[in-house]
């Protein structure tokens, strides 16, 4: 079974959905049942970061070997990652409206993730504007490393250095400090793995289509 991980993806996602809605959660003011969004909103970002990380891995491989298939993989991983980032932004916005009271607040974490999305959109535009394959692979690869470093700064570091509404940043503890009880871990960890695998699945399909197109162009 070469595709066992696809079966695992399906299993984990259905478990996330059913367990995520049925298994008891801690009772919190303001949050109430919306705490269950943790199983869906947060894994979107984890999937995005995972896909962008794998993309930068392939970019480094491509830069060190001049193999153009690495560039193709890097591009499609970014494309798939952007989808997850968009979903994370939209779901976060809805969640913010009903807990913080506004669709968007000028918070470091939120603005940082928005800037990160723009940086990666610029990657797609930059890569698309170059015609020469070798040059494109090299410039896109270097930019991708730059983009991932900025992602770490804007999502990982800066939000932790100032006050933030968003859990897990600044003086604001993440769910895992005391809220994420054992019941929630039971769903949250499988959810993260399931969504990441789904992202990988979608990216792998995009990579295969891209390779086919290249073959047809030759």
């Amino acid at each position, binding site marked *: 079974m070469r595709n066992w991980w*696809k079966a695992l993806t399906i299993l984990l996602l*259905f478990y996330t*959905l059913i367990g995520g*809605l049925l298994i008891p959660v801690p009772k919190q003011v303001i949050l109430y049942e919306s705490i269950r969004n943790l199983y869906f909103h947060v894994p979107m970002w984890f999937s995005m970061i995972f896909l962008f990380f794998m993309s930068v891995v392939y970019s480094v491989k491509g830069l060190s070997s001049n193999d153009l298939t690495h560039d193709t993989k890097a591009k499609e991983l970014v494309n798939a990652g952007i989808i997850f980032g968009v979903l994370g932004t939209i779901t976060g916005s809805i969640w913010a409206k009903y807990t913080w009271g506004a669709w968007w607040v000028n918070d470091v974490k939120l603005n940082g993730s928005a800037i990160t999305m723009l940086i990666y959109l610029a990657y797609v535009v930059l890569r698309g504007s170059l015609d020469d394959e070798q040059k494109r692979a090299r410039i896109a690869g270097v930019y991708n490393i730059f983009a991932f470093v900025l992602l770490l700064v804007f999502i990982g570091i800066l939000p932790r250095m100032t006050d933030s509404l968003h859990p897990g940043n600044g003086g604001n503890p993440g769910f895992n400090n005391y809220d994420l009880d054992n019941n929630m871990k039971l769903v949250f960890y499988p959810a993260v793995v399931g969504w990441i695998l789904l992202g990988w699945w*979608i990216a792998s*399909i995009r990579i*295969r289509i891209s390779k086919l197109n290249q*073959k047809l162009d030759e």
Partner: protein
Amino acid sequence: MRYFSLIALILITFAAKAQTIEMADTMRSEGKIYVVIAVLGIILFGLIAYLISIDRKLSKVEKQVNS
């Protein structure tokens, strides 16, 4: 067949009894959360079935191109 009608009779009795006590079946209990699970489950099932069919179609085209 004999057993079937017997079991059916027992089930009907139970159902009738349950109905006189409470008007909620599984789908209408717990704030109807099971209805949400059914809806989301169908959406997830549909999307994953679609993804699998895309995956299979792609495998076919890959075979054609690579042969």
